C-alpha cells in the first residue's frame, strides 16, 4: 500500500462531500487561523467577532423562522436575556461569566418555551406580533426591575481575567466555537424527523398534523432550540462589553439585523444565515465608520430589508443555486410507467409492512391478532357538523369493520369529505362521538389520531412541494415519542423504510425529485406511501382515483388490496363507481349529510334509493304509455351509475 493509491481514494471520498460543506470547512479553517497569522489586528478581529455573534443568532432564527416558517421579529431578546442572566448571577456569585454563559442559554430556552406554549398553540399571526411586543416589554421590565437589573443605569461586569496582551482573541475563539456549534446544531435538526416536521409545518400545517406531526410541540421545541446559542452568546457578549443596559441589551436594531442576515443569505438554508450575517455586519460596520449614528443605520437596514424582500426574496444562496442549475440543466426524469405499472410483488408489500411493525407498541398487535372481521374499528354515533345553517353531516351513525375496504359514495356536497375531516380531526364536530378501536377520539388533536393509527389522503394531493419525494415519505410520525421525533430522517432505518414504501407504490426512482415537480397521479401514489409510513390501522382515502390515469389506477387497486391483505382497513370516498364496485365491500351511500343505504356491491348496484340520490327524481326515462316507475329489481350498468359524478 503506497501513498499513491491512497490519495485518489481520499480524493474520491472528498468529492462525495457537497461543495457547500467543503467551502464552509475551508472558511472555518481560515477564520480559526486568522488570529494566529495576524494577531495584532484588533480591529478586524473585533469586526469578525461581531459577525460571528450575528451569525449565531441568525442561525438560531433560521430554525423557527426559516425551517418552521414562523417569523420572529424579536429574536435579539434572547441575546439580552443571556446577557442579563450571566451579569446578574455573576454579580451575586463572583463566578466568571465564561462559566456562566451556558446558563444564559438555559434562561433563553426557558423563556422561549414558556412564551411559545402560550403563543404557538394556534396557527397564524399571533406569533410575529408577540415576538416584537416581547422585545419591547423586555426593555421595560429590565428598566423597571432595578432591584435586579439596576434599571437604566445598567450593570458593569468584571474585566477579563487574561492579560490585555491577548486582547479580544479569547472572545474571538469563544464566538467562533459557538458559531460552529450553532451551525452543527442547525444541520443536525434539519436531518432529523423533527426538522422534516418543521418544514412540513411551514409548507402545510394542516397536512403536517394529519401525518402525525404534533405541530404544537414541534413549534415550541423549534422556538426553544432557536434561542439556546443566542442566549449563551449573550452571556459571552456581556463579558466582552463589560457593561449592560436595557436599551443596548434588547435593541430592536439587533433583531432587524438578524432577520436581514437570514433573509439575505437564504432563509431555510443551512449556511445562508451565516453568509448573510457576514455581509450585514460588514454593511453595519461600514455605516458606522463612514459617519452615521444609529439613525442612519436604521435607515440603511430598513432600505436593505425592503430591497431584499422585493428583489431577492429567496436569498443569495438559493438564487445562486438556481442560476447554477439553469446553466447546467439536469436530465428530467419522465414518468416511470414501467416501474409504476409493474405488479407489486406481494413479498415487497409484506416485507415493508413487517418492517413497519417492528418497533410497534402492543396495542396494534392485539388489534391484528384478533382476525375477526366483524369487529368494529371505527364507530360514529350521532355525528353532526353544521356550517352556519347548512347541515353538512347530519346525525350520522356509521361503523367501519376491521379488515374491510369500506366505500362511501354519494353526490357532491353530500358530506363525505366533511365526514373525513371530522374523523381525522381537521374539524371539530358540533355533536356526536367518534370511537376508534374502542377508544373515544373526538377531542384528540389530529396528530394523536394519527398516532393511534388513523391515516388519510386528500382529495387534492397535499404533498410538501418544496421537499423531496423521500423527505415527504419520511416526514410522518407514527407515534409521539421524542425518540421518534429526533430520529435521523436522511439515512438509517427511517429513510430505508421510506424507500421501501416508495418501491411498493412504484415511485422508488423519484426519491430525490422535488415533490412539486411530480405529475398529479404520481403525487397520489407518493401520498399513499406517505400515509403507509404512519403505520395506520385505518386508511381514509379521499377520492384516490381522481385524476389518475387508467393504467395507474389498476396499480392503485393492487396496492390497496395488498395492503388490505395485511390487515389494514380502508375507508374510501370515491366517485369512480366501477372501481368502488370492484374493490370495496361494504358500500355506504351518502345523501344530504347522512347514509341512506349500506350493503355489498351487488345490493347497492340495484338499490332504487341510490339511483334517486344520484340522479334525482327525474332520472327515469318517461317511457311512452304506461307511467315510468322504479323497475323492480332492475339493475343499472356500472357506466350509467358513474355518470352520477358531477
Amino acid at each position, binding site marked *: 500500500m503506497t501513498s499513491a493509491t491512497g490519495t485518489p481514494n481520499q480524493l474520491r471520498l472528498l468529492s462525495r462531500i457537497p461543495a457547500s460543506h467543503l467551502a464552509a470547512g475551508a472558511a472555518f479553517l481560515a477564520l480559526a487561523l486568522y488570529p494566529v497569522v495576524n494577531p495584532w489586528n484588533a480591529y478586524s478581529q473585533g469586526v469578525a467577532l461581531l459577525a460571528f455573534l450575528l451569525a449565531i443568532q441568525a442561525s438560531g432564527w433560521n430554525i423557527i423562522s426559516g425551517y418552521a416558517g414562523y417569523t420572529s421579529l424579536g429574536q435579539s431578546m434572547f441575546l439580552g436575556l443571556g446577557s442579563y442572566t450571566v451579569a446578574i448571577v455573576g454579580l451575586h456569585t463572583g463566578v466568571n461569566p465564561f462559566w456562566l454563559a451556558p446558563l444564559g442559554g438555559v434562561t433563553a430556552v426557558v423563556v422561549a418555551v414558556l412564551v411559545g406554549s402560550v403563543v404557538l398553540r394556534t396557527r397564524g399571526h399571533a406569533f410575529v406580533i408577540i415576538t416584537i411586543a416581547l422585545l419591547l416589554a423586555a426593555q421595560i421590565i429590565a428598566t423597571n426591575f432595578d432591584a435586579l437589573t439596576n434599571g437604566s443605569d445598567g450593570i458593569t461586569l468584571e474585566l477579563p481575567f487574561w492579560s490585555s496582551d491577548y486582547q479580544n482573541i479569547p472572545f474571538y475563539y469563544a464566538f467562533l466555537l459557538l458559531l460552529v456549534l450553532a451551525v452543527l446544531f442547525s444541520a443536525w435538526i434539519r436531518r432529523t424527523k423533527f426538522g422534516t416536521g418543521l418544514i412540513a409545518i411551514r409548507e402545510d400545517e394542516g397536512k403536517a398534523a394529519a401525518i402525525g406531526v404534533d405541530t404544537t410541540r414541534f413549534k415550541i421545541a423549534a422556538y426553544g432550540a432557536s434561542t439556546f446559542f443566542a442566549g449563551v452568546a449573550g452571556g459571552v457578549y456581556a463579558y466582552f462589553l463589560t457593561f449592560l443596559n436595557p436599551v443596548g441589551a434588547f435593541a430592536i436594531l439587533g433583531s432587524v439585523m438578524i432577520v436581514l442576515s437570514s433573509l439575505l443569505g437564504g432563509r431555510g438554508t443551512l449556511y445562508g444565515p451565516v453568509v448573510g450575517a457576514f455581509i450585514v455586519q460588514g454593511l453595519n460596520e461600514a455605516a458606522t465608520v463612514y459617519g452615521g449614528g444609529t*439613525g442612519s443605520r436604521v435607515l440603511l437596514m430598513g432600505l436593505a430589508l425592503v430591497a431584499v424582500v422585493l428583489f431577492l426574496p429567496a436569498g443569495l444562496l438559493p438564487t445562486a443555486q438556481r442560476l447554477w442549475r439553469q446553466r447546467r440543466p439536469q436530465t428530467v426524469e419522465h414518468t416511470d410507467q414501467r416501474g409504476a405499472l409493474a405488479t407489486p410483488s406481494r413479498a415487497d408489500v409484506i416485507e415493508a409492512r413487517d418492517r413497519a411493525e417492528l418497533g410497534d407498541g402492543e396495542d396494534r398487535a392485539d388489534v391484528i391478532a384478533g382476525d375477526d372481521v366483524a369487529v368494529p374499528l371505527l364507530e360514529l354515533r350521532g355525528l353532526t357538523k353544521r356550517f352556519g345553517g347548512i347541515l353538512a353531516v347530519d346525525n350520522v351513525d356509521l361503523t367501519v369493520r376491521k379488515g374491510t375496504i369500506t366505500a362511501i359514495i354519494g353526490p357532491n356536497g353530500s358530506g363525505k369529505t366533511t365526514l373525513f375531516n371530522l374523523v381525522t380531526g381537521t374539524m371539530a364536530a358540533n355533536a356526536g362521538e367518534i370511537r376508534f378501536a374502542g377508544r373515544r377520539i373526538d377531542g384528540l388533536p389530529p396528530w394523536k389520531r394519527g398516532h393511534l393509527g388513523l391515516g388519510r389522503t386528500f382529495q387534492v394531493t397535499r404533498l410538501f412541494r418544496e421537499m423531496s419525494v423521500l423527505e415527504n415519505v419520511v416526514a410522518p410520525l407514527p407515534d409521539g415519542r421524542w425518540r421518534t421525533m429526533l430520529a435521523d430522517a436522511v439515512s438509517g432505518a427511517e429513510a430505508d423504510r421510506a424507500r421501501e414504501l416508495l418501491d411498493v407504490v412504484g415511485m422508488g426512482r423519484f426519491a430525490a425529485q422535488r415533490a412539486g415537480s411530480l405529475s398529479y397521479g404520481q403525487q397520489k401514489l407518493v401520498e399513499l406511501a406517505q400515509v403507509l409510513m404512519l403505520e395506520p390501522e385505518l386508511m381514509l382515502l379521499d377520492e384516490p382515483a381522481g385524476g389518475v390515469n387508467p393504467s395507474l389506477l389498476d396499480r392503485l387497486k393492487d396496492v390497496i388490496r395488498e395492503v388490505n391483505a395485511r390487515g389494514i382497513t380502508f375507508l374510501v370516498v370515491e366517485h369512480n363507481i366501477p372501481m368502488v364496485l370492484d374493490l370495496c365491500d361494504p358500500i355506504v351511500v351518502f345523501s344530504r349529510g347522512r347514509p341512506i343505504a349500506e350493503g355489498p356491491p351487488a345490493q347497492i348496484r340495484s338499490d332504487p334509493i341510490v339511483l334517486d340520490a344520484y340522479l334525482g327524481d327525474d332520472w327515469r326515462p318517461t317511457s311512452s304509455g304506461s307511467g315510468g316507475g322504479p323497475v323492480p329489481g332492475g339493475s343499472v350498468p356500472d357506466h350509467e351509475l358513474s355518470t352520477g359524478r358531477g
Partner: protein
Amino acid sequence: MAQLIQALVLGLLIGGVYALMASGLTLIFGVMHIINIAQGAFLIVVATFTWWLWRDTGIDPILASAVTAPLMFGLGWLLYRLVISRIRGQSPSMSVLLTFGIALVLEGILNVVAGNKFKSATPSYFADSFAVGPVHLPKTQVYGFLAAVVVLAGLYVVLTYTWTGRAIRAMSQNPSAAALVGVSPAGTAALAFALGSASAGVGGSILSVLYPFFPASHFDWISRLLGIVVLGGMGSLPGALVGALALGLAETLTATYASLRWSTLVFYLVIMVVLLLRPEGLFGARLREDGVAA
C-alpha cells in the same frame, strides 16, 4: 371614588383614540391579510408633520387632520401600488417583513430630517381641562376623543353605505367571490390600504398633542395597536373598538392605582392572557380550516 371615575373616563377617552388608530391596522389586515407593522411609523410621521404645521403656521394640531388624512390617503395608495402590491401572492411572512422594513425606513428618514429628540405639540388649551364635578378632563384628551369618534363614525358610514365600502368588506370575507361579482382585488386592496393610512393620518395628528414622541417611538405604538387587534380579533372592526376601550381602561387604571411605568406592561400581559384563553381574540371567528384546539 372621584379618582376611580376620573380613571375610567380617561381610559375611555384614550381608548377611543386607540380605536381609531387600530381601525386602520385591522382594516388592512382584514382585506389583504397583511400586518402593517409600518402603521406605528405612519402615526409618528404624521405627528411630526403636524408638529411642524402647528409650529410654523399655528394651525390647531387636531384640526390639522383635515390636511393629514387626505395626504396619508394618497401616500398610502401610492405605497400600496408601488411597493406592497409587488409581493401579492407571496407568503404572508414576507409582507410582515416588508412593512417592518418600511417602518424602519420611515424611522430612519425621521431621524435624519427631524432629529432624534422628543417633540410634542402644545396648543393654547394644552394645559386646560374641563371640570365636571370632581372629575377633571384635559381638553386635549376630550378633543382628541371627539375627533376620533367623528372619524370612526365616518369610516363606519363609508364601509356600510358606499359601494366601495361594501367592496372592501366583501374582499375581506371572500376575495374570490368578490372578484367574481366585479370587485377588483388590487383596486380594493389599494383603497383599503389608503383608508387605513388615512386613519393613521388623523390618529397621528391627535397623537402629537396627547403624547411626546420621537422617531423610534413608533415601536411603542405599533405594539399597542397590535395588542388591541389581537385582543379584539384580527380583522374585526368591532373587535378593535372593544379591544381599544378595554386596553385604554386597563392602562389608565394601572397608571392610577399601581404605577405609571408598569402601565405599558399591562398591554402585554392582557395580550398573553387573551392568547392563552381565547387565541382567536374576542371577536375573531375561528377559520373553518382550523384544527381542534389541543
